[in-house]
């Protein structure tokens, strides 16, 4: 039976040739490591978010009078609703973590360098879209935490003279966060953002395939060390086949990802759903000691310690832009960060600063 299907597909789409060029004949570097699977894990996480998101849409009501109740009903009344909601909520946090880890590992491996500048930029834009996904999805539960986190973030543009107030009004659909904001964020979360993410994802994957997977700068030296004066595909003829060698690694890491997710759902169910996330939004009461999600704690703390709002937000925008455009500033040929002490020190300091601000923000 399988032979018949195979033959049917062979005649119509040339399946054997496709498998050979895209899987068994597609080579990855011999010294590739486990960190190179993080991109695939992020993709698996995104697919999981799409599927669980579709299920949640069946019960969710995007209206300020019903949103909180409908989410509570998903958790308490809909059979296994808690499972899909928890998978979506925990998954959003884990996906953010995986995308951040992927970015760190790509930076550490120097894989953003020529000719992969566009791959890096597309990846960083996907990171920003992931954060926007998290933020817009956050409001949909219409809880105290989500309401006030959205109030803070949508107030950020007011730091800019002339256009700031207008941008904030446009984001909110009025003076304050309201049912109109909920409608806007819902539309953003379920239509615009998936479209944007899929567009950048397609670009990112096309570039990875077109240029070839980058090889770690440590150990072996291969064709990646040659200078790039014209386009060529980095084919890694001395490496291993993508399938089954690398796919096995990717499956292992994806399994680990879901193991962590289900561990949190089973043993730490309130980790990402604190009390304020289960209290209905009250536009007349800001909860005491409100904190954003862990991935926004560093910018939150930075805003707290920088006395000028415009300065605080401008510094953050400049840092993000600098990071996105980093491959165009760092044009040195050496990819091995261990041989570039200044860059290594900058990398370590940046990571320490980010962790320190996150911890400070959490306990301040």
């Amino acid at each position, binding site marked *: 039976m399988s032979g018949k299907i195979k033959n049917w597909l062979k005649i119509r789409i040339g399946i054997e040739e496709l498998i050979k060029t895209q899987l068994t004949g597609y080579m990855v570097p011999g010294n590739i490591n486990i960190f190179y699977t993080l991109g695939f894990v992020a993709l698996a996480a995104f697919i999981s978010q799409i599927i669980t998101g579709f299920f949640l849409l069946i019960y969710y009501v995007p209206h300020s009078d019903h949103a909180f109740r409908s989410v509570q009903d998903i958790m308490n009344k809909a059979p296994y609703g808690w499972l899909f909601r928890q998978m979506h909520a925990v998954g959003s946090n884990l996906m953010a973590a995986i995308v951040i880890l992927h970015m760190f590992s790509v930076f550490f491996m120097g894989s953003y360098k020529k000719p992969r500048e566009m791959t890096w930029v597309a990846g960083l834009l996907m990171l920003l879209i992931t954060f926007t996904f998290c933020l817009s999805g956050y409001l949909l539960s219409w809880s105290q935490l989500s309401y*006030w986190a959205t109030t803070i973030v949508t107030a950020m543009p007011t730091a800019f003279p002339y256009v700031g107030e207008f941008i904030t009004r446009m984001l909110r659909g009025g003076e304050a966060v309201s049912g109109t904001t909920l409608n806007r964020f819902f539309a953003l979360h379920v239509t615009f953002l998936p479209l944007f993410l899929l567009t950048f994802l397609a670009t990112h994957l096309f570039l990875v395939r077109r240029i070839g997977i980058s090889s770690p700068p440590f150990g072996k030296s291969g064709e990646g060390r040659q200078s790039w004066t014209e386009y060529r595909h980095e084919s890694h003829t001395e490496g291993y086949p993508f399938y089954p060698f690398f796919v096995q690694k990717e499956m292992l890491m994806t399994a680990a990802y879901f193991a962590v997710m289900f561990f949190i759902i089973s043993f730490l169910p309130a980790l990402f759903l604190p009390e304020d996330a289960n209290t209905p939004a009250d536009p007349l009461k800001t*909860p005491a000691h409100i904190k954003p999600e862990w991935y926004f704690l560093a910018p939150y703390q930075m805003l707290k310690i920088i006395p000028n*709002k415009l300065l605080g937000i401008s510094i953050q925008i400049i840092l993000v832009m600098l990071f996105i455009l980093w491959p165009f500033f760092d044009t040195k040929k050496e990819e091995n960060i261990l041989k570039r002490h200044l860059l290594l020190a900058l990398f370590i300091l940046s990571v320490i600063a980010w962790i320190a601000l996150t911890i400070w923000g959490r306990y301040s």
Partner: protein
Amino acid sequence: MNRRRFLISFLGLLGTTVLVSFVYPLVRFLAPPGGEAKGKKVVIKRSEIPAGSAKDIVVDNIPSIVINVPDKGFIALSRVCTHLGCLVEYDKIKKRLLCPCHAGVYDLEGKVVSGPPPKPLQKFVLRVVGEDIVIG
């Protein structure tokens, strides 16, 4: 300019015009419609706010507070923190208005004492008419 260049320029101009003609309606579509009722007065009883205490109210859809400051009388302020829009809370003991989000501190006249807020809290016009306090 030859015919080819003219046509390319013309197409570019046409494309830009089409794009701009869609951008304007889009911005208007996304911008919230105005016309929210403003200037409505709020009336509360003096007896509701003894000296040193405060009452939360809503003026023109803005969460606000009326404080009875000892020796100074009543004052009506917006509760919306000028930093990033969280609502300040009245601390009776410290005699301060505190923002729970980024630790902004205001005095009872709405002036910034410490923290990141860039300007004082919005003040509302307040009149005491007999036993009533009229705000707005």
